[in-house]
């Protein structure tokens, strides 16, 4: 019983942390999409024509996921999208490191003095991925969240 309560507290904590984190991460990019498009360009994975549309949509998807997690709406779906996006970011960063690109991460802020793509960032994303997977399995295991 006690351990159930503990897991419930952990679940709420993870939900709020991820919600705030993604909402915070989206703000800078939403306000300045041209700058974010430039950051995306430096990863050199997308066709040039698509840079703007991706830079426009990704921050808003992050923001909506942040809100749904904070409000506890569709937690399992939000956690599912979150883990997919984070996994994609991890692959992207590892590929940038492997290609020797010394580029801005664009993870949380667009500050030019902000952090570059590094293993530290990859590990951070692994924690986010683990957190969102935990939420996903917790939420799908609870029948009332399906309603």
């Amino acid at each position, binding site marked *: 019983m006690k351990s159930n309560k503990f897991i419930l507290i952990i679940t709420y904590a993870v939900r709020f942390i991820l919600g705030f984190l993604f909402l915070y991460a989206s703000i800078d990019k*939403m*306000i*300045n*999409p*041209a*700058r974010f*498009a*430039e950051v995306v*360009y430096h990863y050199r994975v997308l066709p*040039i*024509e*698509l*840079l*703007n*549309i991706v*830079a*426009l*949509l990704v*921050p*808003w*998807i992050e*923001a*909506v*996921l942040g809100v*749904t997690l904070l409000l506890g709406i*569709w937690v*399992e*779906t*939000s956690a*599912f*999208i979150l883990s997919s996006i984070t996994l994609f970011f991890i692959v992207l960063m590892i590929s940038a490191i492997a290609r020797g690109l010394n580029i801005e991460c664009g993870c949380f802020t667009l500050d030019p003095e902000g952090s570059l793509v590094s293993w530290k960032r990859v590990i951070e994303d692994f924690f986010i991925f683990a957190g969102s997977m935990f939420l996903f399995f917790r939420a*799908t295991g609870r029948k009332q969240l*399906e309603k």
Partner: protein
Amino acid sequence: MRRKILIIVSRVMRIVIVSCVIALVFNSFSPKGIPLITRYRKITIRGNELKVPIFIVNSDRNFDNKNRQFGFAMHPAEEINLKDAFKCFANGTAIFIDTRTSDRYRLGHIPGAISLPIEELSFEEFSLENLGLDQKIVTYCDGEECSESIDLALYLEEIGFSNIYFFISGWQEWKNAGYQSSEGDKP
């Protein structure tokens, strides 16, 4: 299980659609809104055509969306080889801009070259007010491994200069050819 998957898929689609709608509406009203398709221009380097994106906001009135070009005359920046760069130097027909760090500039540069180290430069503070937009300018950095000469050339082109060349093999090739050089802080 199947039902659960269907619910999740349908919710994923709804979240994505809602996000897209909000993004597009916000983008159309935001002063920092951007075109949905990235604008770009083509430059030729070593015979290969490259697409270089232009990151503009919709409110940039200099940009003609229909024709995908800036309102002012824009001549694409071009590559220049050692022979032609030297000709420009000897005839005094172009201004050379050294984009390397001040330390490297101090150790040796093309005589008369202006030092504009990109790494130490803020583009907001950047100005070449005394130069006409049709002034021939040759940018260079260390050699083929660096890209600062191209970065600056494209930036100059973007702000309206119409006679810009980037000397890719840069300082290394100039030095190896045994051409004149200057040392110190002054051009």
